[in-house]
């Protein structure tokens, strides 16, 4: 396990109500995990605990074997885990794109020539190489988030967290960032964890963990988690529309398993439904 949380409890300040209650969770190296939940379920808090940005009130979180409570290890852990935050503006430090991306390696004391190389590489990786000398102010939300991703990649972490990083973006921007997440996992073998309440984002992950009131409510592949439509609705979340469609059709007594999340798969299923239906009705009338 790359990141391991055991018996995790967390409360903010003097708050009597814990934000995180007794969570055991392991994140495997190279996996793409989505943590979803309603507002207030604790998902952002959990992400920060897993990334070592918050210290557990009780319990242990280890990142690559290092305990996040250990002050002496905290810097090493920060090097391993980067986080892209929700507000695109509030994570950009510099007025020029390449200068912002260089921020992390500069902090690490990397020699200038090596920083230059890293900056060029990561900007290419997120498709922003043309914008290297552009002003950061004029970028769109999606572009700013890509610059933020590049800034994290420049410190060469093993793991990258996205804390509702698509919440403030328009649909096109959201699509770009989700595509970037997949690319990071597939092409760079990075461990990716995204915190979101957008279902179209969660279905792209390998694993979905559902939080409800600070506890783990469901955990499995996207299909496993979303096909239990009633369960998801009880956690105050939504399922993809096609999944809900199958659920509604199933209510009519037909065989309509809800283990479908994507448009094309659903089209296949419905097509087959009509074909078997036609066959059955033909058999009925032509025995």
């Amino acid at each position, binding site marked *: 396990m790359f990141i391991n949380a055991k018996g995790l409890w967390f409360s903010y300040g003097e708050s009597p109500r814990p934000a995180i209650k007794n969570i055991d969770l392991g994140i495997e190296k190279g996996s793409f995990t989505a943590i979803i939940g309603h*507002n207030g379920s604790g998902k952002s808090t959990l992400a920060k605990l897993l990334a070592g940005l918050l210290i557990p009130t009780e319990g242990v979180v280890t990142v690559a074997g290092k305990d996040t409570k250990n002050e002496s290890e905290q810097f090493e852990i920060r090097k391993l885990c980067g986080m892209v935050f929700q507000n695109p503006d509030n994570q950009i430090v510099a007025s020029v794109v390449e200068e912002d991306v260089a921020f992390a390696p500069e902090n690490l004391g990397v020699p200038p020539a090596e920083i230059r190389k890293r900056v060029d590489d990561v900007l290419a990786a997120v498709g922003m190489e043309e914008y290297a000398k552009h002003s950061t102010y004029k970028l769109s939300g999606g572009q700013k988030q890509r610059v933020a991703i590049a800034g994290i990649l420049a410190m060469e972490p093993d793991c990258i967290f996205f804390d509702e990083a698509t919440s*403030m973006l328009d*649909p096109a921007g959201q699509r770009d960032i989700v595509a970037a997440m997949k690319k990071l996992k597939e092409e760079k073998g990075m461990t990716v964890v995204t915190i979101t309440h957008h279902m179209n984002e969660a279905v792209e992950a390998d694993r979905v963990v559902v939080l409800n009131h600070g506890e783990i409510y469901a955990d499995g592949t996207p299909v496993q988690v979303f096909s239990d439509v009633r369960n998801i609705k009880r956690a105050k*979340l939504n399922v993809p529309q096609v999944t809900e469609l199958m659920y*509604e059709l199933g209510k009519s007594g*037909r065989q309509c398993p809800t283990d479908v999340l994507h448009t094309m798969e659903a089209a296949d299923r419905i097509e087959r*439904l009509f074909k078997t239906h036609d066959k059955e009705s033909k058999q*009925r009338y032509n025995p």
Partner: protein
Amino acid sequence: MTKSQNSVITLENVTVKYGAGTPFERVALDGVNISFPKNKITGIIGHTGSGKSTLATLLNGLLKPTAGVIRLEGEDIHRDKEFTNKIRFQVGLVFQYPEYQLFEETLERDIGFGPRNMGLSDDEIARRVEKAAEFTGLDAYTLKSSPFEISGGQKRRAAIAGVIAMEPSVLVLDEPAAGLDPMGKEEILGGLCDYKKKTLSTLLLISHNMEDIAKYADYILVLKEGKVFKFGSVAEIFSEADDLFNSSLDVPQITKLFIELKKRNVIDRTDIYTVGYGARAILAKLGESGL
């Protein structure tokens, strides 16, 4: 375009140019003609840069068009400065992420800010604040809290309440559910529909999210590159869903599904925009063959 039965706001040949005459000149809206139906919910959709936000600021008189006339109940809203200043109380505008407009010591005072600027009596202000709080689901305890102590969702409601308290006959909201989780979205949008029903006002919702618009709107205005691309009832717009899809506009997943099913000759319905309709359409077709 439906020449509306009963329109509350009309735009006649309205053009908005930014930076006119400079090398940075940009046409945000180009000779648009729009009639917003009274007492209905109209969704406004379009890509970033299609002119949606410009349209919003035109409607309450904040922005003056470079050319053309905007009428509220038939009257030119820019006929004189005094009239224009009153328009913003009749056409309420809630911006994106409106939480940042909160500043008073308590929510109660903040929601009353608009009414106070209208010069109303204290009793009237109190009445309006109470009503607005009720519509947005803010309880008495929260009303006494400082806007800086409450949650993001509550701030959003307070900001919307602040505009509702002016009792505008038209309410324009730019992405009112932006950044909210599914439940938060339903509460805000459902609450707004409720508000519109009870007060017989008109609602204009700007949104990127087709699934939301499909669920709550009566009419849809589609803007593309500063021009009106489509306008009609929700059913009319979705009967031409391919056009939306081909313009790279986000259509609800259920609509995409039926566009695909039509391609495969499984079922010929492309006017499906909610899951409910979709299920009914499929069951109906299955039922046709006698099973």
